[in-house]
């Protein structure tokens, strides 16, 4: 496993730990892992699984305001941190253990290992993060042995402290296979170079990660066998672009979430998913209620943490994903997040639907559709658009606007057509690699 600054062999973690105290001293503890970089967090997970009662992974973009809530809701008594995070956070009253990069020898793991709870924070595009309890068994439930683990090199844009990234981390550990971690401060092009030099065979990210990567000339240094998207809707445009960029690779998209766990993978290169995935299969049952995808499986989270926490699943054990779907000719398409609907005078607009239309234009790298307050209808639809090339000016901008609006008018009813298009240099992503919908 490597990041820009360091690397480690998984095998050496059986006899070494990166913690400033013996891992066994943290037996039975509720531990928050709050490091700046993901590398020491990864080592700490390996050191403490089977010992700690609970491991809570602080997400990389955790606001200070949410830290107190997490410490309370997860009943944290110990914090594993690195110098960078320690300097900026208030861990008063807690035992603090420093996670380093260097390994010190440790005793073998005792035989009476406990089933440690692994706790992840939701990426929450809106609102405060919620804490979702998983078991290692559930997290690893969808992982099948790779044919040739030794020749597999995982590379991911995801942070391993989020559900999607943690899946890749576990695949690498269980392989064991190599894993190339990204770094928050690293430019996309630099990371792509590193993936290319390491010979990454399996590369994973959100559609937004990939849209950015496709803008980089460094992409040509990659030759993956497997390319996967998850975490956001993979529209046909991004699937086709990746297939063109990597003709030799298998391009798949997957459905998973922090709460619902790994749902399914779609391997036919088409957006959406075959209707026969709805129903019961070994280990998982998927149903659609009121347009919302619901998942019941051994891989879903067990519960939310916190005294006032809501139920994670309904009385039948189904997790409501909040993702709207619709079926058309034997195939389901993802409409978008229920919480993201824009209300235009009572008519509902799903931003993702309008974005998918705009993304089909060859000049568009990435579109973001949002509501803008309007005194007559409550909201109107507006779109921010990042392009593959330079920002257009004057007549060029007007001509491109007219083309994009004509495309929208052809495909969408009038109330879904953006009232305004704004061309932007780049669109912000959240730390989890999703299009940041609430940010300027």
């Amino acid at each position, binding site marked *: 496993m490597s990041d820009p600054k360091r690397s480690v062999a998984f095998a050496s973690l059986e006899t070494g730990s990166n913690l400033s105290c013996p891992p066994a001293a943290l037996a039975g503890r509720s531990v928050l892992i709050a490091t700046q970089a993901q590398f020491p967090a990864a080592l700490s997970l390996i050191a403490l699984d089977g010992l700690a009662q609970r491991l809570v992974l602080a997400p990389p973009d955790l606001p200070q305001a949410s830290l107190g809530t997490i410490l309370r809701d997860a009943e944290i008594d110990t914090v594993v941190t690195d110098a960078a995070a320690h300097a900026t956070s208030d861990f008063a009253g807690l035992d603090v253990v420093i996670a380093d990069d260097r390994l010190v020898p440790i005793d073998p793991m005792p035989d009476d290992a406990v089933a440690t709870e692994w706790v992840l924070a939701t990426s929450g595009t809106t609102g405060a993060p919620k804490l979702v309890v998983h078991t290692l068994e559930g997290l690893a439930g969808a992982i099948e042995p790779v044919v040739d683990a030794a020749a597999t090199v995982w590379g991911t844009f995801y942070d391993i402290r989020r559900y999607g990234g943690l899946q890749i981390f576990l695949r690498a550990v269980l392989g064991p296979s190599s894993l190339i971690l990204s770094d928050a401060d690293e430019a996309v092009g630099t990371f792509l170079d590193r993936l290319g030099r390491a010979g990454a065979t399996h590369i994973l990210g959100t559609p937004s990660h990939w849209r950015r990567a496709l803008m980089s000339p460094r992409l040509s240094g990659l030759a993956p066998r497997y390319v996967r998207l998850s975490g956001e809707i993979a529209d046909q445009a991004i699937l086709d672009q990746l297939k063109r960029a990597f003709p030799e690779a298998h391009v798949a998209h997957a459905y998973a979430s922090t709460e619902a766990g790994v749902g399914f993978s779609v391997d036919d290169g088409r957006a959406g998913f075959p209707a026969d995935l709805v129903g019961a299969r070994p280990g998982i049952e998927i149903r659609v209620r009121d347009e919302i995808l619901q998942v019941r499986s051994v891989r879903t989270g067990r519960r939310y943490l916190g005294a006032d926490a809501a139920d994670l699943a309904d009385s039948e054990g189904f997790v409501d994903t909040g993702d709207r779907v619709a079926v058309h000719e034997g195939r389901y398409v993802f409409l978008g997040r229920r919480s993201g609907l824009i209300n*235009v*005078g009572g008519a509902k607009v799903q931003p993702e639907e309008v974005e998918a239309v705009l993304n089909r234009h060859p000049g568009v790298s990435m579109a973001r559709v949002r509501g*803008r307050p*309007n*005194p*007559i*209808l409550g909201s*109107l639809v507006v779109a921010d658009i990042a392009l593959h090339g330079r920002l257009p000016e004057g007549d060029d901008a007007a001509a491109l606007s007219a083309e994009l*609006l004509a495309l929208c*008018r052809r495909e969408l009813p*009038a*109330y879904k057509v953006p*009232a*305004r298009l704004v061309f932007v240099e780049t669109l912000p992503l959240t730390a989890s690699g999703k299009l940041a919908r609430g940010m300027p």
Partner: protein
Amino acid sequence: MSVRPILLSEMTRIADENQKSLPPLVDDLVMLETEFDSLCFALLVAGMEERTGLDPFTEMDMADLPVTVGELVALYDRAQAHAAA
């Protein structure tokens, strides 16, 4: 200077883009009796704010909505005079 020419050109643009036909825009034209629907009207208010910075609707009582083109022009002219003062 009256905002009338800007307002009328925005109305024409929005009607064109949404394939609505409008009769000649005379002062006593009642807007609700044309194809210029509430979406067009919302687009007009947004377009006017973009071009002139004026948004007389956000702060007004919806019971006082202008009925005719002339009333709409007057409303924007008042907002402009207010903004200039």
